[in-house]
């Protein structure tokens, strides 16, 4: 029983990684928006970098989630 409980707690702890991902995505889009409002002409040329930054940020959080899922389901 302790093992099952420890697994649950561990999975929950692993999900804390998602907080960082949320933070990062907020920073990416927030900074893009403030930059885009200052210089709307250059905004469309930076969408590649925007999406790239978003995906890279999101992935770091998902690593934590994958670890949580591995802990729970193996």
């Amino acid at each position, binding site marked *: 029983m302790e093992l099952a409980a420890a697994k649950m707690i561990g999975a929950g702890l692993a999900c804390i990684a998602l907080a960082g991902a949320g933070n990062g995505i907020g920073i990416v889009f927030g900074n893009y928006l403030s930059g885009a409002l200052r210089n709307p002409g250059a905004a469309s040329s930076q969408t*590649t970098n925007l999406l790239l930054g978003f995906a*890279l940020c*999101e*992935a770091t959080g*998902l*690593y934590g989630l*994958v670890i949580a*899922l591995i802990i729970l389901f193996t």
Partner: protein
Amino acid sequence: MAMSPMEQFEVKPIVPLHLGGYDVSFTNQSLFMCLVVAAVTLFFALAVSRPKLVPGKMQSMGEISYEFVANMIRSTSGDAGLVFFPFVFTIFFFVLFSNFLGLIPGAFTVTSQIVVTFALAALVICTVVLVGFARHGFGFLKLFVPKAPWYILWLLVPIEVISFLTRLVSLSVRLFANMLAGHTMLQVFAGFVVALGAAGLLAPLAVAPMLMIVFIGALEMLVAFLQAYVFAVLTCIYLNEALHLHDHH
């Protein structure tokens, strides 16, 4: 209800087959890979079946896809990168179609298996290394030596080597984790609907997770496209490094 959210990722053999001690069964994974390839082929076959000067609906979709990938390569690695157009195009559309095909309820998501994404990422990294050595010979190794004073280089070179090798892991795990997490989330919310629907008086509340599934489904559509896009863009960026080393295009 009692179904585990991970059950959908289970690879089940359809035609069991063993060759020389190896399990080479035709699985639902293989079936959906074939379906993905068939879907991509059908899409582009229809797009170019009756080419006209003024494109119709299907033809313009094909042309837009071509332009989209071509622009992606041009903006990241310049015109020299267009040599790799077929490679990037194939990878992009394989990943895109397997992501989208996986979103159909009941379908199997090919890219939710790490073996598939890892193989794709390994293909990309091997291509990068081969192209780098073919283009620059042993000069390719300069990629791992940044411009820095010698007393810091002994620290930087191992870091560069490790960061190059970690791309293999990050490229594959990013796609795999996104697909896995998205589909698990959908399944978990579907479980909420079933649980609430069987809860007697609380049954009308089941509409809430149902709506949530619709929203997450829409988000998953975005993620499916975005992950294919990111995979392809990162492939271009890595190829660009192999083509031009550190000097800019």
